């Protein structure tokens, strides 16, 4: 692997600008697109006494482990 080279100042500045742009974009997404979706996920916490649930992620074979979900 190649060693990490330090960024130039210009590169660093453009990364900062990109970071701010990304945050503004995501902020707009949050306030304009999330509200209708949020209606479906406004469920109350489970009222049952136990919070244990069965383990569900299958991890037995190589095929299972290839999945990122």
């Amino acid at each position, binding site marked *: 692997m190649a060693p990490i080279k330090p960024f130039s100042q210009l590169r660093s500045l453009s990364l900062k600008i990109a970071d701010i742009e990304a945050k503004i974009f995501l902020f707009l997404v949050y306030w304009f697109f999330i509200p209708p979706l949020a209606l479906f996920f406004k469920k109350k*916490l489970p009222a049952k006494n136990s*919070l244990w649930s069965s*383990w569900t992620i299958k991890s037995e074979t190589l095929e299972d482990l290839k999945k990122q979900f």
Partner: protein
Amino acid sequence: MKILGLSCFYHEAAACLLVDGKIIAASAQERFSRIKHDSFFPYQAISFCLEIGNIKGSSLDFVVFYEKPFLKFERNLLCSLKYFPHSSSFFVDSMKNFLTEKLWLKATIASKLKIDPAKILFVPHHLSHAAAAYYPSPFNQAAYLTLDGIGEWTTASFGQARGLKIFPQSEMRFPHSLGLLYATMTAFLGFQVNDGEYKVMGMAGFGKPKYCSKVKKLYRQAKDGSLKLNLSYFAFHRSSRQMYSTKFLQEFSGLNKFDLAASLQKCTEEIIFNLLEKISRQTHKQNLVFGGGVALNSVVNGKILTKSPFKNVFIFPAAGDDGGAVGTTLYLYHHVLGYQNRQPLKDIFWGIAYPKNEVRNFLTKKKVKFQKLSPNELADSIATYLTNGKVVGLFEGRAEFGPRALGHRSILADPRDPKMKDRVNSKIKFREEFRPFAPAVLAEVAPQYFQKINYQLSPFMLGTFSVKPQMAKKIPAVVHVDDTARIQTVGKNHPGNLRKILEAFRKKTGIGALLNTSFNLRGQPIVNSPADAYQTFISSGLDILVIENFLIEK
């Protein structure tokens, strides 16, 4: 079979190389980058592991990541939706992280290591912890418990392990998390989350558990051991910048911080021992393996055998996320691929070492005056300095993996001097005055000093045990205010010079113990290279530095 395990992008990035079932190299990225709890992609740790294995990335059979990134993405997205409109900062921060790096992890690994993407695998976070706890243990069957801040969705899990297989049974899910409860109080007490938890544990010894009833308002534990947090006191589920709510602030403001830490510690112990009761009833096992960040709570660990039904316990020394890099390789190798040759843990010196000629060249280049000593001279010489009240930085062999320094990257001092604790805290490590120090003690004399030692935990400094009252006066620098100590027993097979130094110190003083603390300054990772060690030496109050067999006096 060559497997590389990775953990990164949350905290404690690390890499581990497993070759034919044997861990041949493992290191946290922070040791190389010098950024404490470095979470970025562990380039340097990977390079180190591949160099030790003398292999290229492309010749690895598998690369395994310690969690499922898409499941974590799902949690972040669904929590943003669920807690709308209070989750805007959480949404922005987490989506930015995921969209720029975490979701492309597979492509990043494939391109950096030049490996076929089909060879990149993902083991669930809590199974990585369970595997790190079980496969290096001496048990052929055991119950397991993992307690962590958070994995993908899982915050706690338990199950059984038999032979080569791990059988997870149940899990608790975000936001209900014992780790996050502890982390929230850590933040409230003014420490950094994922770093200051052990400071809270140290503070607890100074306080009285007066506020347990207040702490219990934060959660409810059901009879089956499961934990439900009262979310009105918390903010971590909807904010990436705030752990607790104003209600939490109102409840705990103005209280004595030491008593609050003691109350939290007492409640944590109650929760864990209730959980262990339940797990014991369900699994009918006598052996327990315990993993996840909460398993680094040495006060709890020291009480497991006396306060739970389990007869034996094993904890992997790097129980946090760095250890996930190890667990994930072991899970693939034994559970999925079915290889038989399990290797019980002997030591954790899996980090980098520097040849003596390289050390000599470094010191010569720096124009440092040094003495070269033989191994026997070295131990005797160090013991003499220690008896004269000098504080010694010891650097030798391969670095330890995990948070504890066990003699290869350690600062040693005389435990008989009552002022030594304050001296090392204020002039050498520059850290809080309440922080205790641990003793390294010859295994055969440990029962003379300490009570009810669990020898499965003590070689790795994983448990806190009571000091015998008549002995506390003899080693005051390593006895905490509550008359306990987080001991490291040093047996005859301990690699390196620590054992010889302890023996030489015992010959001179009659005391078979030394103060042993990690070789670093406050806020810095443990030293990794001779250059780090020398820099720490000259910028602190250390009197003597020993790198391999070269001794440097200030």
